[in-house]
């Protein structure tokens, strides 16, 4: 069997395309994933044109809030590229230099201020986008919605804070500037105290009226004390308290690495074993080999062994490459090995079943792609993303192929968070045995056709 294994490795070495597939592919995947997960999601570049006159202020009761905070707030969320005018903004969007252009029109503050009048106008900001494809359109919409929500929240909080300051002034008293002149505000607390102090001096018949004023001042003070946090809550009335009913999940970068490893194993191992077995038929060597030189079982074992060995080497190569970008827990190497070996065994046996059922390498390669790619994509569909019936069907379908348990096993091997590794490993072992049995059956047909 070792001579057959050496022969297959020799054949691999002789094929530049396969060499590229087996060596360059994992390196490429490692680099892509590495770059993607080792960098902060970059701030989108947005062309920014602020037409608001300097010194404009947002009205808050009798006072005014400076408007300069709004643009600062926006530019903390995106990378603002200042542009001189509307034409420049449009040009930047058209050329793809920026994701979108945001224009704060000159009348924005006036319109904001009109909200507190009898003739309210809707404040609008102008957004210029180039929705060249649906994905970009969706991404731009999501970004703009998030951006405006944050800007609205910021403004609401500013107004709430200013409102709260005025309430404090009414309750506790203090100084307030009107047209540059300080005005003293007595406040409800001091008013009630003064009235209480004056009460004995007031004639008996008029005390009932005075008591009503004192009671009002006390009640107003007490109730306005709690109004300030209430106003603050109005800015963001609903808060989120997220509680997960599942086990803690591993970080996104670990999931991305596991998905890349599972995908690499899928293509490398599945295609290699299926193609290698089909090649014996294409080269007419299957009958010669099994005509007394090796048993069919030994040939099958050799092919599966080849797939596992190459799959292991390629996946470890990929993980080693990713180590440049992410700190992997090498102390869990034993678990990595178990996950990779069983995942590779699952894919290798599935590849053997495919290879035993196809007549030539091209046909089996096409078949392997047609089966594995959709199943790999379906395996990534989360629950709740599709209807319950469809999700159940996807679960059954993906459970019949090694990708999903391989992904789960690799994720569990790479990171202790999340579900355990035992279940996926058992699942992979069962699939490997089932596919090996199927391949053995298919080989009988292989020999007689």
């Amino acid at each position, binding site marked *: 069997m070792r*001579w057959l294994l050496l022969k297959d490795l020799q054949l691999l070495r*002789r*094929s530049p395309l396969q060499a590229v597939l087996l060596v360059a592919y994992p390196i490429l995947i490692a680099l892509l994933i590495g770059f993607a997960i080792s960098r902060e999601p970059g701030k989108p570049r947005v062309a920014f044109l602020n037409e608001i006159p300097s010194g404009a202020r947002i009205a808050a009761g009798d006072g005014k809030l400076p408007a300069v905070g709004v643009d600062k707030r926006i530019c903390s969320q995106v990378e603002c590229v200042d542009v001189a005018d509307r034409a420049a903004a449009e040009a930047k969007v058209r050329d793809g230099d920026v994701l979108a252009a945001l224009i704060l029109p000159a009348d924005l503050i006036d319109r904001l201020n009109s909200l507190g009048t009898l003739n309210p106008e809707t404040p609008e900001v102008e957004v210029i986008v180039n929705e060249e494809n649906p994905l970009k359109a969706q991404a731009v919409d999501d970004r703009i919605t998030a951006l405006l929500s944050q800007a609205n929240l910021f403004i609401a909080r500013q107004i709430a804070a200013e409102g709260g300051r005025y309430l404090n002034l009414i309750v506790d008293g203090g100084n307030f500037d009107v047209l540059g002149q300080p005005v003293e505000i007595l406040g409800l607390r001091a008013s009630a105290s003064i009235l209480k102090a004056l009460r004995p001096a007031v004639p008996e018949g008029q005390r009932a009226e005075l008591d009503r004023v004192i009671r009002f001042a006390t009640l107003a003070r007490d109730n306005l004390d709690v109004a300030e946090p209430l106003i603050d809550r109005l800015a963001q009335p609903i808060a989120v308290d997220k509680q997960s009913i599942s086990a803690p999940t591993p970080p996104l970068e670990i999931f991305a690495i596991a998905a890349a490893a599972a995908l690499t194993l899928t293509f490398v191992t599945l295609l290699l074993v299926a193609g290698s077995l089909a090649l014996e038929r294409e*080269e007419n060597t299957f*009958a*010669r080999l099994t005509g007394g030189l090796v048993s069919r079982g030994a040939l099958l074992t050799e092919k599966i062994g080849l797939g596992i060995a190459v799959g292991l080497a390629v996946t470890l190569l990929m993980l080693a490459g990713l180590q440049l970008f992410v700190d992997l827990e090498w102390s869990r190497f034993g678990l990595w090995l178990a996950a990779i070996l069983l995942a590779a065994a699952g894919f290798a046996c599935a590849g053997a079943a495919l290879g035993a059922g196809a007549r030539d390498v091209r046909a089996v390669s096409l078949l392997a792609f047609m089966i594995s790619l959709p199943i790999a994509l379906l395996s990534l569909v989360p629950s709740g993303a599709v209807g319950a019936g469809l999700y159940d069907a996807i679960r059954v379908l993906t459970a019949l192929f090694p990708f999903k348990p391989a992904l789960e096993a690799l994720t569990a091997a790479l990171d202790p968070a999340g579900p355990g590794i035992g279940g996926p490993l058992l699942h992979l072992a069962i699939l490997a045995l089932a596919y090996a049995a199927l391949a053995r059956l298919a080989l009988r047909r292989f020999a*007689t056709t």
Partner: protein
Amino acid sequence: MAGSATAALEAHKLVKRYGAHEALRGVNFAARPGELVAVIGPNGAGKTTLLSILAGTLRPDAGRVESPNGDVGWVPQQAALYRRLTVEENLLLFARLEKLGDPRGSVEEMLRLTGLEERRGDLVSRLSGGNQQRVNIAIGLLGRPAVLLLDEPSVGLDPRQRARLWEFIAGLAGGGTSVVFTTHDIQEAERYGRRLLVLADGEGLFDGSAEQLRATVREEAPEAAGGDFETAFISYLQHRGH
């Protein structure tokens, strides 16, 4: 049928079915050491099925095969070679798989025997059809089998390559190797086969020399006896209802 006392290869009442179709119907066959036996017959007669069963790559549904003098070498119709390995690598691989005592020595011997020494480092995919067939045969001969089975060995070869091939095969038979080959070329069967086994619809119709077949034709289809061997053979088949 040839006498079985000294047979290098014997088959008894071989039956093979593919579903409802009976590819072989109780075929008997024997080959003596050094004998060159041609298996001929129309398409679908069961020639390749018979050779595959004799080679052990296909199991019969009934009957048995015996090769008392040792291994049977098999050379399939289409070259069973790894095209991305060199001539030498192919030979060495199969020599090792046959667990020969001195695989490299056997490879050298086969390279000499087949005249492929100078092409040993060439990828098989770069060889001509004739040279590929020589490598194919060399692999069948690696274990120095007592019997060599060749399934249409001259298909795709030009006349010169064909002549060299038959010279080589005749040399093997001269050395004591029993050679059994199938062919569609009746003239080739007449020229190189010391014995002919005629199969039609899975039945063994005739087993004897080319002269004996001509004598049978003279007896059964005298109108065709004066023509060439191929015409006589066709008349014989027609007379037998095939």
